[in-house]
């Protein structure tokens, strides 16, 4: 599997080095705690950026600079916030074409075994959203849903 982004490699390596499931779980909690409110301002936490079908609220954004996508994610729950931040960080800086090459294996390699299936499904859904953002050149989630982005 090709290397994706330096950030992605960092996460994958860090999680691989932790050999205890509980510690890996706590690592994700710490990731969530590191995301500060100002990293994802209130103004972005609007329905238009809200992912549907999640147990807690998850917002995702895509900013396109120089043909590359920069994602950010936020949630009202710490664990999901940590996951969203890791997913956004891992796959930011990629071009539309590079995004399309991502597969669920890339998410699996992050080694987040300490998560319940439901959350793993949520991460796959985030990945799909990133890829859709890529195809539509950014915009809000609401625009993606309505097909106008």
């Amino acid at each position, binding site marked *: 599997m090709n290397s994706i982004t330096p950030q992605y490699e960092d996460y994958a390596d860090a999680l691989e080095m932790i050999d205890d499931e509980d510690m890996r779980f706590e690592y994700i909690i710490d990731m969530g705690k590191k995301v500060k409110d100002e990293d994802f301002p209130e103004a972005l936490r609007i329905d238009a950026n809200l992912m549907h079908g999640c147990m*807690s609220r998850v917002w995702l954004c895509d900013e396109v600079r120089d043909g590359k996508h920069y994602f950010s994610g936020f949630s009202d*729950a*710490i664990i999901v916030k940590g996951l969203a931040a890791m997913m956004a960080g891992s796959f930011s800086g990629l071009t539309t074409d590079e995004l399309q090459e991502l597969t669920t294996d890339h998410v699996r390699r992050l080694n987040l075994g300490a998560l319940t299936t439901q959350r793993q499904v949520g991460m796959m859904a985030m990945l799909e959203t990133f890829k859709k953002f890529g195809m539509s050149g950014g915009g809000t989630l609401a625009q993606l849903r309505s097909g106008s982005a």
Partner: protein
Amino acid sequence: MNKVVPIDIQVASNSMDAFDIESVRKDFPILKQDIYGKSLVFLDSGASAQKPQVVIDAVRECYETYYSNVHRGAYFLSQKCTDVYEQVRGQIATFINAPSENNVIITSGVTESINLVAQTWGRKFLKKGDEIIVSEVEHHANIVPWQLLQDEIGFDIKVAKIDDQGEFLLDTFKALLSPKTKLVAITDCSNVLGTMFPVKEITRLAHEVGAKVLVDGAQGIVHKGADVQDLDCDFYGFTGHKIYGPTGVGILYGKMDVLKSMPPYQGGGDMIEKVSFAGTTFQEPPYRFEAGTPPIAQVIGLGAAIKYVSDLGMENISAHEQGLLAYANELLSAIEGVQIIGQAKDKAAIISFLIEGTHPFDVAAVLDRQGVATRVGQHCAEPLMDRLGIVGTVRASFGLYNNKDDVDRLAAAIGRAKELLL
């Protein structure tokens, strides 16, 4: 937040001794396992209860030794299977004190029991301009079937209220009653708050205006049993899997005159008297409402579950659970930042809670890592969450097999959640 005074813990633990919880726990093979290297603490019986060995054995024995279709075979096995199956109907009638086994309809669960009433009684007797009353704590299973019918018929749905403690407001309920009220569909125990509803009084008041009463007994029967004649309700529904029986089976009790007035529910085999293309006639209740092959082994498993709880004694189960509830209230309300949602005086052993400054999903995830299984979210009661102004709760619901150690583990896991999340 109110500090809960431990109500007579002494009495509670005495009755716990009489009940011999440690021997009861041995009846449940699933409880013996470890989760993430920690012994399992199962606190999600409100969603579905674990099964004692006698239930597992009854289902297996049925399949291994006498399984066959019921009500139709002219051979030994079918006769035996039919006998065992039909005995359960009588056993359930005794358990809920129904006048006869003919008042007991077998369904796939309380959800179907309620839909059955909506689609037969409701469709026949509810008219435009009528009113029905549900409460704001109802499970979606006792809201949506009425809304579906409302869309077709155009009656009104009124909502009976609770106060901030989760106590049913009888006076505001009375104010909703009028000659327009045709049905009160209400739970006897909130699956979120644990509040036991005064369904006997509710039924009496509803009958005064000529309304019928359906009780959703999914939770109540598990913790306190039910006496349908004493309640005097017209319908009482419950689900097998919450009362330590198999999934896929439930019960609808109905008063005989009401059942007789109702058209069939689904069409098919078993529910007919005579079928011809010139016209078909239907069986009397309860068979009129039971089309097709029923969940045979599940019903037999439910029979074993009902026998199991009856042998233990519903009063003993209730006393044991009340002891746990008091103990859990004491421990949890002593933890700073824990807010117990639902503080009614008469409660079943269900504790919904939040930890200040945390999201319930995070809390439940940390509890899970400690081997403590709880449920988190809206608990199929979205209108109640709106009423309380919260996104959801973590819910610890106790069953007859939980012990004080489980409560200690819950309290410790909450402490761990605070450490990790705050």
